[in-house]
Structure formats: structure tokens, C-alpha cells
């Protein structure tokens, strides 16, 4: 398998990155998880509005870059998904 089917997931706007729906719940995904297309990967909170970051493809989570609950800028790299 080649490494060129790495799909990048980027922040569509600035906001605070959340890996879990609320602090007491497990993270949406961990590195190594197999995800479906449109599966929720994380949340982004911008000015009190939450949006779901969804996987653009089916694949495997290779990398999760930001720390939980940290601010992201528009276009920041969030995750890398490897398609099979």
C-alpha cells in the first residue's frame, strides 16, 4: 500500500477543537480507528456554535494533530485519514 492516499482534514474556520461530545464521554475517534465516510471525527466551537467535523472519506485515522480543547485557525490541519 502506498502512502499517497493520505487525506487531510482541516479546520473549515477558526474555533476551539473538541475531541469528545462532552468531558465525560470517550473521544469520537482515536488514532488507528477505522472510520466511515461522514463519521463524526471531532467538534469545532466557533463563537458558541458547534459544528461537527466529519470524515470526507472511509479510511483509518493516521494522525490527530491538535490537543483537545485548543484553539484552531482557519485551515489548520486536524487529522490525517488513510484510505484503503
Amino acid at each position, binding site marked *: 500500500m502506498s502512502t499517497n492516499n493520505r487525506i487531510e482534514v482541516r479546520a473549515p474556520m477558526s474555533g*476551539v477543537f473538541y475531541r469528545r461530545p462532552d468531558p465525560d464521554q470517550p473521544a469520537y475517534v482515536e488514532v488507528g480507528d477505522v472510520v466511515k465516510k461522514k463519521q463524526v471525527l471531532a467538534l469545532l466551537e466557533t463563537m*458558541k456554535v458547534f459544528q461537527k467535523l466529519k470524515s470526507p472519506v472511509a479510511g483509518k485515522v493516521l494522525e490527530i494533530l491538535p490537543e483537545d480543547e485548543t*484553539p484552531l485557525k482557519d485551515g489548520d490541519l486536524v487529522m490525517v485519514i488513510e484510505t484503503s
Partner: protein
Amino acid sequence: MFDKVLVANRGEIALRVIRACKELGLKTVAVYSEADETSLHTRLADQKVCIGPAVSAKSYLNIEAIIQAARETGANAVHPGYGYLAENGAFARACTGAGMVFIGPTPDNLELSGEKISAKKRMHAAGVPVIPSSPGGVADLAQAMDLCREIGYPVMIKAAGGGGGRGIRLCVDEAALAEEFPVAKSESRAAFGNDELYIEKCVVRPRHVEFQVLADRHGNVTHLGERECSIQRRYQKLIEESPSPGLTPELRLEMGAAAVAAARAVDYFNAGTVEFLVDQDGRFYFMEVNARIQVEHPVTEMVTGVDLVKEQIRLSAGDKLGYVFEDLNLKGWAIECRINAENPDFNFMPCPGTIERYHAPGGFGVRLDTHLYQGYELPMYYDSLVAKLITHDLTRQGAVRIMKRALEELIIEPIKTTIPLHLKIMDDPDFQAGRFDTGFITRYVPDEDDDEDEDD
């Protein structure tokens, strides 16, 4: 009496409170998060205290840090603004416990909103019309039919265990009720583990009309007229005005009396708002009491001439109200447009960023409540409301014309705002004629569910 007020908020409402305090000769303390160091409220107050990191939960919602800031600066009163801790009974008690005056309603008033059913019962007992509904669970279809014949269709079947819009079925007539009731029962059992259903009359295409009330500690209560708030999207108001183009003088009188009765029924103190739904036939129903100064309070100020924030402070100092609605010389019409940093063409998604070009409108009949300035970096952490543009004239048509002119002058760039949407609404013939209900906005903004995205 207090002489130094800590303002436990940020943004335009913090400025609003600081300005009122200054005019009353009171010293002010601003609190701010690490993301708000350059925010205008920190510059206008006499003193400022950083209360924590950017995330609101650790700063503007941090009761301990705020009380500590008040102690350190010697503030002996706290104004909570709206949002954040404004309706938090524990915060009000903490202020009082620390020897400070909480400028707002009593803790009991604040906690009332969490007890909707008991509030509704007290309103009903006080003769305030509430939305007709079953007193409790409805046992079977026969009982449901009897009830609905009494309250009239359409009705909503609601699952007692549901919430947030789930488990609700609309029935337009008896045939629909007969079909839906058993399904709703089994669905409710499956979804919520509880098959108890109750039934509520459905108010079709209502207007949202609310009454401002003021109450002192000496048993005096008055209302200050109504605000029409039907132009809203998903319960977020966009445009408010006073008076309402939808009320007759008779209805205004009746609803004003009901608002005062509602405030009395819950021993209300300070400034508050009694919300009603008004149906197409002019019947009105109590919704809730908002125990705070509201975002849209300026429209009431413009037509009554009463500074509501100063009244909150004065009443909290123990003063008597000293007047009733009938004593006020109401003048003209006021409209407020909420300018949000949002993109109306992209599902109202927020739009933070740096304000590179800013110009405030001016001239006769224009008021702008905002914390913006050129070069301000709008933080991503807080509400998208960036300005409230209020216009006032002798007539509604005049206020609409001034609004249009002022919206055209207002420059907030390069971020996206609701200014273009407001301009479209000002040109809408139905808006101009005052013919609208809470469904109005859907003609400009499809009411999409952003949870669904089967679009690719």
C-alpha cells in the same frame, strides 16, 4: 448604598452597564478573560481584573474568580449583564453572601425558569392565560379526544420523557389524533422508556410579543409596554421593535395587565420580561419570565425615555419605582437590528476575525450599542452579536427608513455580518406593513437542519 459596581460581563452589554454607572457617579470594575485584554470594556471601566483564560467556563462563568475580583477591588455591587451568570441563582447568592448587592432579580426569581411547570401553574392561578394543555399525563385515546374537543385543534402530543423537540406529534384534527396517539405511545415507550403522553394546544403562526416589567422592593410593579420579537431564526431574535404592529390598544391593555399579574404572581423584583405568544385571532398565552435585562431592551428605552439599566441599579439600591406605565409619555416607534458576525448565506455560521474597516452610522434617530472599533480582533470564543443598531422616529415607517439609511452607512469589514439580511428585510413589503409572524425569516433563510447533510 453602593459606590463601586463590578460588571460581570463583556461586549456591548458591559459597555452599556459601565456607561450607566458613570452617569450615576458610580465607580466601575471590568473583568476580562485572557482573550479580551484589548476589548473595549476593559478600557472604559475605572479598574480591570483578569479573571481567567479565554474559555468562558474558566472566566466569565467562574463565580469564585469574579467574587474574588470584587473583593480585591472593593466593589460592593455586581451587575451581571445578560447571558453568562445573569440568571444563575447560586451566583446571586454568592454575591449577597460576600456582602455585595446583586443588581438584578432575587435568587428565587432566577431559579423560576428551571421550574416551568410550577411557573405555569402559578400563572394560571393568577389569571394569566397559559397554553391550554392536559393537566398531566393523558391515559388513553378517549381521554385525549375529550380534552382536545375542549382545547381545540391543532394539538401537539408530547412525550413526557422527551425533550429538545423529540417525541412531538402534530395533530390537526380528531382523525389525526386517533391515528397518532397509539403510535406516539409505543414510540415514547421505546424511545424514552416511558409511555406517558401529554397534550398541548398548538399555537399556529404566532407572534412573539414580550412585556418589559419593573418591580421595586416595596410591592410596586409596572410594565413598560411591549416588544415585538417575531423576526427570529431558531428562537434567536434578529429584529425587535416597540410598540408591536400586531397589537390593538385593547389587546395591549389586556396583555400589560397580564404581565403585571405574572410578575406579581412570582414576587418579581427588578427588571424582567414576560414573554407571550399571540395567535392569529389575538389570543395570547404566557410563555416565560426572563429574569434579566434583555438584549433588546433599547427599543423600550427609546419609546419610554426610561433608562432600564439605571432603573435596575436604582431599584437594587432600594428606591421606590415612583411611576406606572400610564405616567409615561410614550413617543414614536423604535426598531433594533442585531448585527451578528455571521454569514446569512451560509446557514448563519459565525465569522470571527479582525475588524479592518469600521464606520459607525450617525444622525437623527440613530443609536448604536457596540464594542467594536477599527482594528479590534473579534475573539472566536464568544457570542457573535457585535452591534445593536437602534433607530427611533415618530412613526414606524420613519424608523424603518432611518434603519435602512443607517444600515447602509454601517461598515464592519471584512467579516460577514447580518447587515445585508437586515437590508433585505427593511425592503420587504410585509415587514413594512407589519404583517409577519415567527415563521417570517424562512422566506429569506431556509430553515435547514445542519445535522442533516445528505447533500453530496
